């Protein structure tokens, strides 16, 4: 089917959504959308479904008056109320279509606010431009991450630390893994953003107004003084925070795929070794061995399995890589983002696969029906296709609204990759068993078809 004008069943979200995923990974940071009330409520709802956590996002609640005369008054009132109500250390402002189209100069409004309002004195305010019509949530994510270092990073003394930028949306469990990995390695690092606690908070007796955790503000300021930056999941992204730090402060930047699969995880480990001169801890060598062992165990079951992988660019590439490492055959490698670099890498990773960028689910569905797909991997939004094609769907990534555990999915690193292999294998086995059962019941005359 040719690319249609209308988008049918979108495989992407809007830019402000990406900004929330960054701002919520910053210590004491409250996100605020400059726009109409609905944007913040919709994204709160969307993320609450996914993470099963309360998600507060403020809004400047622009109305007709604001749309006509400009939203400065609303934005300032919104900032003031957020400071009074939530006592944030930082506020991350993301614009919406409305604010961008009426042409509000947000940085200027923020400067005025900071000059006028005594309450603003101890609050760091970051503003980013994220109109939904410009690009997808992935770009919103990159822009917000860049906005953070642009606003906050300051040159002082060399710290010798390494900036680990999480360049793609991964789960809180994945981020916890990265922290553990780096801690065990014993190297100094700054991890940013850090949603490991903020989007997956422990139940405790005190629930703070803004969830605890996140990258400390001082660390963000200090990113200018690190000896290098690794962007994990920045492989096919346009220049972002890491490039800014390199250009502005001379911090060398390396953009890597997410550590999913053997090769990509090895690549992260190798880079860390080179940068630090320290070897990867022995326990992770054993983990690597266990991953390899798992891949060997599952190789026959997974051999030649035709798959469709879709979702966010970096995640899709990582999953595609481990599939080819296992001898699976990705047939569709798709993303909703309009990202040509993705297309190039995807074609290299999975020769012969139909690679799609800027795709929606109607296009993916059209491809799926002619390619005998046996397994789908991606967000829950592909469930319609899975149902129609009677193909099992392993839910990975954002959004996942109809299953539990989105926050706890660990798919990064050797251990995470091992989980992914287990999950793919089991989903296929369960599907096969259901099929066999069904056939038996049909033979016994219990059901029709």
């Amino acid at each position, binding site marked *: 089917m040719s690319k249609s004008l209308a988008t049918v069943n979108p495989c992407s979200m809007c830019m402000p959504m990406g900004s929330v995923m960054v701002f919520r990974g910053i210590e004491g940071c409250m996100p605020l959308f400059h726009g109409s009330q609905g944007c913040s409520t919709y994204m709160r709802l969307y993320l609450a479904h996914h993470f099963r956590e309360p998600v507060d996002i403020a809004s400047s609640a622009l109305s007709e008056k604001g749309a006509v005369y400009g939203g400065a008054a609303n934005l300032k009132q919104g900032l003031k109320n957020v400071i009074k109500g939530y006592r944030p250390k930082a506020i991350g402002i993301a614009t919406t279509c*409305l604010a961008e189209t009426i042409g509000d100069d947000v940085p200027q409004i923020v400067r005025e606010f900071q000059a006028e309002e005594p309450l603003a004195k101890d609050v760091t305010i970051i503003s980013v431009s994220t109109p939904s019509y410009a690009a*997808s949530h992935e770009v919103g994510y990159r822009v917000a991450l860049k906005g953070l270092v642009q606003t906050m990073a300051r040159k002082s003394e060399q710290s010798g630390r390494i900036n680990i930028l999480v360049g793609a949306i991964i789960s809180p469990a994945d981020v916890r893994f990265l922290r553990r990995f780096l801690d065990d390695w014993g190297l100094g690092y700054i991890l940013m953003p850090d949603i490991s606690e903020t989007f997956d908070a422990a139940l405790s007796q005190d629930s703070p107004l803004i969830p605890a955790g996140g990258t400390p503000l001082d660390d963000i300021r200090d990113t200018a003084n690190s000896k290098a930056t690794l962007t994990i999941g920045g492989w096919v992204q346009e220049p972002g925070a890491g490039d800014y730090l390199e250009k502005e402060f001379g911090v060398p930047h390396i953009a890597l795929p997410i550590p999913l699969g053997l090769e990509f995880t090895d690549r992260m480990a190798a880079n860390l070794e080179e940068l630090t001169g320290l070897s990867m801890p022995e326990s992770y060598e054993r983990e690597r061995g266990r991953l390899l062992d798992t891949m060997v165990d599952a190789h026959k079951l997974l051999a030649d399995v035709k798959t469709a992988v879709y979702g966010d660019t970096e995640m899709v590439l990582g999953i595609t890589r481990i599939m080819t490492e296992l001898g699976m055959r990705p047939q569709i490698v798709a993303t909703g983002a309009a990202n040509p670099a993705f297309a190039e890498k995807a074609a290299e990773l999975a020769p012969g696969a139909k690679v799609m960028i800027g795709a929606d689910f109607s296009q993916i569905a059209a491809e799926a029906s002619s390619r005998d797909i046996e397994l789908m991997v991606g967000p829950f939004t592909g469930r319609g296709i899975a149902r129609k094609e009677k193909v099992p769907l392993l839910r990975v990534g954002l959004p996942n609204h109809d299953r539990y555990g989105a926050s706890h999915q660990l798919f990064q690193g050797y251990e995470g990759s091992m989980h992914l292999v287990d999950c793919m294998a089991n989903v296929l086995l369960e599907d096969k068993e259901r099929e066999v059962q069904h056939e038996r019941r049909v033979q016994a005359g219990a059901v029709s078809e």
Partner: protein
Amino acid sequence: MIVKVFEGREGHIQQKGDGLPLACNNESLAGAVSQRACVYSGARVVLNPITDALHLVHGPIGCASYTWDIRGSTSSGPDLYRNSFSTDMKELDVVFGGEKKLAASLRELAERYHPPAIFVYSTCIVGIIGDDLRSVCRRASEELGIPVLPVKSEGFRGNKNEGYKAACNALNELIGTRNYTPSHPSINLLGEYNVAGDLWFVKPFFLEMGIEVVAALTGDARVAEIERAHTAQLNLVQCSGSMTYLAKKMEEKYGIPYRRISFFGLQDMSNALRTVAEFFASPELKQKAEEIIRRETARVMPQIEAYRAKVAGRKAAIYMGGAAKAVSLVRAFQELGMEVVIIGTQTGDRDDYQKIACIVKNGTVIIDDANPLELKELLFKQKADLLVAGVKERFLAYKMGIAFCDFNHDRTTNFEGYVGMVNFAREVSITINSPVWQLPVKRASRIGNASQLSITAGNENYVQEPCHS
């Protein structure tokens, strides 16, 4: 004031007995994290359950992404409504206008999906750049030979109530375009959205009484049913916030009277059946209604009594989108022997809040357009055991160790009709009486001095020093 509130929110919250009318139905306060959505959302939730219609969002992709298959409204047949269609406006469309893309999209989608009607929703940006939705839709309608209805739902033009109106206006254009002669007597069900299959637990009673349901608006509706809805003799209005406007229009235009009813709770469900019987002034209908009421009540009473024994005396908080459901919930909680200590809505109007004030006890907190900070403090101060609300509020309650019942449009359990009340009672009971609330939040330690407080017992620490005043 029972809790600290943001400056400008003082009038929106009171305890019954305070006397003053509640401030309501105005713009949400910037920075307060209102639980409300926008005009578009109001329009979308009303129209989305029309199962065979094509719902096209004219705007950037976000508005369509976040509302894709958003309602738990179920269908007995077509499922076109469970897809998400968007013109996915890009920068160039914003600069040069989106009318051409819209017109081409309509053509393409009509050809591919053959819908009996298309609803076209405008979003914030369309209102700013000034696309003429009405004339694009009119031209498309002529060309395609199907109704193409513009829904004027720019997000910033008011609150959700404006969206309800925009949806009703679109429905109003559709109604009356198809000839039909229903059997006698006949009714429409307005503001019934078939969430979790609710309709299917209610409609059979009317059929049993010999009443034809011409159209349900909009639960499990087909376009054709709505087109002939003007032929019914009576409109029953359940979700009054969204559909009273349409009911009034239909009364003006077609002389169809309307009655407000609710299908939730034993009392309200029974009253709905009686209301219809009385309207048609038929002794036979009355007798049938009483028969059904007796039979169904007897059937579910033992189960409800069993649950009532487990929840009676507990305190409930209600925070709903619309007021009608909130009012119905108060009565349902009475049926379960529970006390309502907080009641609030996103979009209630002055009449709604007066009605609410009449049916709750003195001391009950009534709140309009609440936010998480206020809700949190209120739940604590009013010692609520249970919150009934939607997904955004669910995790707020859970984090505080408070039981929760989902009564929003994405719930998956049927709550209407007699069986629905059993389901509701069960859900209230399983969450209130779950053992998880008794688990120790802190592990007993032989070497530390960790407390053994349960989740619920730790409540006093939840409310941080309020500072937003």
